[in-house]
């Protein structure tokens, strides 16, 4: 008889875990809160992915296709784990979906509940939701994904756009001290995309540190060298409205200009990643630990980043902290391997 493994969350991490387990012959139950699979990349219609600008569909679409076509993966859409109990070394879970509740016993569990985007309205200085032309990187992903890159205020193409980094990250005021890791690269990628498709639109990036770590650095160099993106060191202190329907970024250029107030047609806030409301919820439901940043806590961040503190419950993807899709997919595979080993050992 094959093993039964529960995967919670159908983003890149959960999907890859499900696909790997299915290939091992495991019966997989995939519980997804949304009515569709693919996680945040699907929800916000990411179009091209860093680092190589390949179409998101190559990655996300591929994983969804494999999941949906596997006989031994049962996907529950718009569903949740409503009750969870240990049963010896196994686990009893109640899965609640639109078609009712079902109780199933699992040999092991993978949590891949991901992240939520920081809501920039929480930091008043950026005037998000106050001015139509202040948007954030997830809004821009969606705009680009829908081929609708225009100023929300008047429907016209912008001529000058600012990207503001570290929104909702590295800031004690909003309670997030950590770096969200991907937003520098996402912003640089978006600036390149914008310059490629709309060459007469100028792009500025206001940064405190550019953290295009590892090979992502290539994009940063490319942005300056091939796309003439202006990179200005200084965090924005305030966004106000300016003449001619502009939004004005006010700050200190700490290297060159000193104080500045520059009007833009549109401002894109690089909002970071948060553990969201799902992390504490899953933490209390499954009895696994939450860390001080609001994400799920691995048993050992270095030795076993994919294990929770509870034997038999494994973690994968952005639920343990900000990371790129490739890392989430790698962790999905690692968690699958560990969940499988645990299940086989306790058969």
């Amino acid at each position, binding site marked *: 008889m094959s093993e039964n493994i529960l995967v919670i969350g159908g983003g890149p991490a959960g999907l890859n875990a499900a696909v790997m387990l299915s290939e091992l012959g495991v019966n997989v139950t995939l519980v997804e809160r949304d009515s569709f699979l693919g996680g945040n990349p699907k929800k916000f219609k990411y179009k091209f992915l860093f680092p190589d600008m390949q179409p998101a569909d190559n990655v996300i679409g591929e994983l969804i296709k494999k999941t949906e076509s596997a006989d031994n993966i049962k996907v529950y859409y718009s569903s949740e784990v409503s009750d969870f109990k240990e049963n010896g070394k196994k686990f009893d879970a109640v899965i609640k979906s639109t078609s009712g509740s079902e109780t199933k016993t699992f040999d092991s569990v993978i949590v891949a509940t991901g992240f939520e985007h920081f809501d920039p309205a929480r930091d008043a*200085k950026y005037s998000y939701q106050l001015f139509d032309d202040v948007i954030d990187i997830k809004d821009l992903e969606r705009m680009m994904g829908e081929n609708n890159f225009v100023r929300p205020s008047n429907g016209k193409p912008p001529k000058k756009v600012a990207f503001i980094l570290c929104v909702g990250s590295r800031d*004690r*005021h909003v309670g997030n001290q950590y770096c969200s890791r991907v937003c520098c690269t996402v912003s640089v990628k978006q600036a390149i995309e914008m310059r490629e498709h709309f060459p007469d639109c100028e792009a500025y990036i206001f940064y*405190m540190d550019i953290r295009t770590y590892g090979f992502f650095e290539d994009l940063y160099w490319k942005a300056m060298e091939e796309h003439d993106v202006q990179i200005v060191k200084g*965090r924005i202190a305030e966004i106000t409205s300016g003449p001619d329907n502009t939004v004005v970024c006010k700050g*200190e250029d*700490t290297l060159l200009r000193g104080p500045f107030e520059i009007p833009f047609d549109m401002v894109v806030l690089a909002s970071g990643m948060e553990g969201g409301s799902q992390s504490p919820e899953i933490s209390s439901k499954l009895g696994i630990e939450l860390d001080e940043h609001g994400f799920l806590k691995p048993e050992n961040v270095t030795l076993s980043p994919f294990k929770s503190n509870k034997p038999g419950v494994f973690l994968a993807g952005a639920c343990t902290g900000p990371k790129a899709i490739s890392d989430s997919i790698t962790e999905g595979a690692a968690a699958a391997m560990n969940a499988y080993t645990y299940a086989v050992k306790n058969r």
Partner: protein
Amino acid sequence: MEYDENGVSIVPAELKKEIFEEARKDFRYEEYVRGCLNCGVCTGGCPPHRFFDFSPRIVLQKMKSKDPELIWTMMDEYVWACFQCFTCAMICPFLNSPGGVIAILREIAVRRGFESAKKVLKPYSRVLLKLTAYGNQLSPDMIQPDFFPDWGPHIGYASTDLAVKRKAIPMPTLQVTNLAWDVAPETMKELYDIFDEAGVFKIIESVDPSLYEIIQDIVDDVRSS
């Protein structure tokens, strides 16, 4: 006082070290100076930054450098450019308080009677006198067209017949012109004790000795009444 080519007063290295130590020992220091991202948010929001070569980011960075030489460069003029509005403290992502650091440095300059402090406090001698001798800050008789041109076109009228106008106020303690309100001698005595304990009189003695003498005459009178 002699100045170097950057306009910084020349003093012995020992004094600079002493100033730095004094600031570091201040009970507020740990709260005001944490890490610093060098991000410039404080400076971006700082009103005087738009008008002078002044930056709260530099204040915090110099403090964190622990270099007494660098900190000294702020003691003559730099620290007096701040409005003490504390916008910087409200928006710093690290929760530093550059404005608070400036308050600490200013207090040192005042306590030690530095030239810069004397110069800055000179125009405030009228206020200092009222405050320390009578426990009031502004009084009706200080309203004079020459001093408050920004109070609008009716300042001339406002400054005449003060005694009569004050009588129109129903509160008995407010019917004085040399004070904002009448302060009971017992209250004044308590106030003097507080100023003594807090070293306020000593500070005034060091920044403005002649003002100090005038204030002490009043204090002695009240205390012996």
